[in-house]
């Protein structure tokens, strides 16, 4: 039951895009059509689902001082967390990229440049940093959190891509075309998502 509430909470209440602004760059750049958005969303879920538990274990057994630390209770390596997290993420993204290239070539060609860019997607590093801040009790919770926040990101990017496909037929003031109107659209979507904020689960 706890897992379920954490899952729902990380999709809707703590949505990566609407509540924390994580992963906005690729969110804006790749949301021009639903098909690519779909692919990137799935890739983000996959990378989050692998990196977050790995970083959780590293954080628990390597970086945080205390009885779990393998270097003894007095060694505090938490200042290294940024560099270790980003190294793990870069390595895993590389592996995921190679796997996708081998087994799903059509997805690989449609994602193109954006797959390696997942390494510098804030949603992935942000997930790990929030994981560190939230101090999850066990590996299961961190995996559920990864799945939930990835799903929230996926939902947000597919929804925005669908809206932008329709928006291309609209008559928009010249200065607002492209980036401007997209920001305002995302803002309005965020207002809608704010409805979940009072949700106590």
């Amino acid at each position, binding site marked *: 039951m706890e897992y379920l509430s954490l899952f729902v909470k990380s999709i809707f209440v703590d949505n990566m895009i609407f509540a924390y602004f994580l992963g906005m760059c690729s969110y*804006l750049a790749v949301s021009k059509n639903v098909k690519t958005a779909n692919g990137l969303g799935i890739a983000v879920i996959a990378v989050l689902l692998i990196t977050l538990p790995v970083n959780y274990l590293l954080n628990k057994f390597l970086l945080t001082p205390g009885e779990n630390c393998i270097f003894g209770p007095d060694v505090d390596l938490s200042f290294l967390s940024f560099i270790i997290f980003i190294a793990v993420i870069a390595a895993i993204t590389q592996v995921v990229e190679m796997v996708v290239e081998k087994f799903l070539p059509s997805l690989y060609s449609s994602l193109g440049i954006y797959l390696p860019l997942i390494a510098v997607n804030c949603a992935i590093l942000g997930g790990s940093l929030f994981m560190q801040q939230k101090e999850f009790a066990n590996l299961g919770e961190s995996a559920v959190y990864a799945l939930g926040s990835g799903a929230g990101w996926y939902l947000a990017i597919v929804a925005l891509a669908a809206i932008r496909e329709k928006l291309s037929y609209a008559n928009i003031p010249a200065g607002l075309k492209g980036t401007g109107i997209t920001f305002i659209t995302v803002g309005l979507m965020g207002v809608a998502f704010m409805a979940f904020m009072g949700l106590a689960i």
Partner: protein
Amino acid sequence: MGKMKETILNPIFKGNPITVLVLGICSSLAVTVELKGAFVMALSVIAVTGLSSLVCSLLRKTIPNRVRIIVQLVVVALMVILVDQFLKAFEATYAIDKQLSVYIGLIITNCIVMGRIEAFALGNKPLPSLFDGVANGAGYGMILIIVAFFRELLGSGTLFGFRIIPQALYDAGYVNNGLMILPPMARIILGCIIWAHRSIDKDLQEK
């Protein structure tokens, strides 16, 4: 000298990283609820972009092309760790928000930093690279501060924590706009800034 001036001024106006290139929005908007957070964030980004451009530019002849991304990532992460430790040391003195730490960490994945190293620092001498990094950080910070100015003024009626909107106005029935403090308004304000910027500078309009 004219070239140097352009290196510094271009990122602030015509090639602004946020409103024109749409880079590095991720870590930026969450800290714009009040001016203080935005100010700290702006200074941190300036420090990181400037220093990492400088270091990468110094190393540009020794970095093998194939592994340059990972080298850049390590340099940037190092600078971010320095900034983060620096802020942690002064956290208590200046009452800097704990939440900011996560977003400071996210400067690593801020596309501006990597983008400027890749586009400028690897092909230029150290000094222009330093200026380019600082100027891009400043262009970025400027937008943060503008957004934070509107959000704090309209959302809480204060600037840097000082009350701006007089009590008499509240007594007369004025109410703070609670929506301004919530995340969506940051995007709508940014959308409006982009609109204003592109209405003035018509070259930037998208087809």
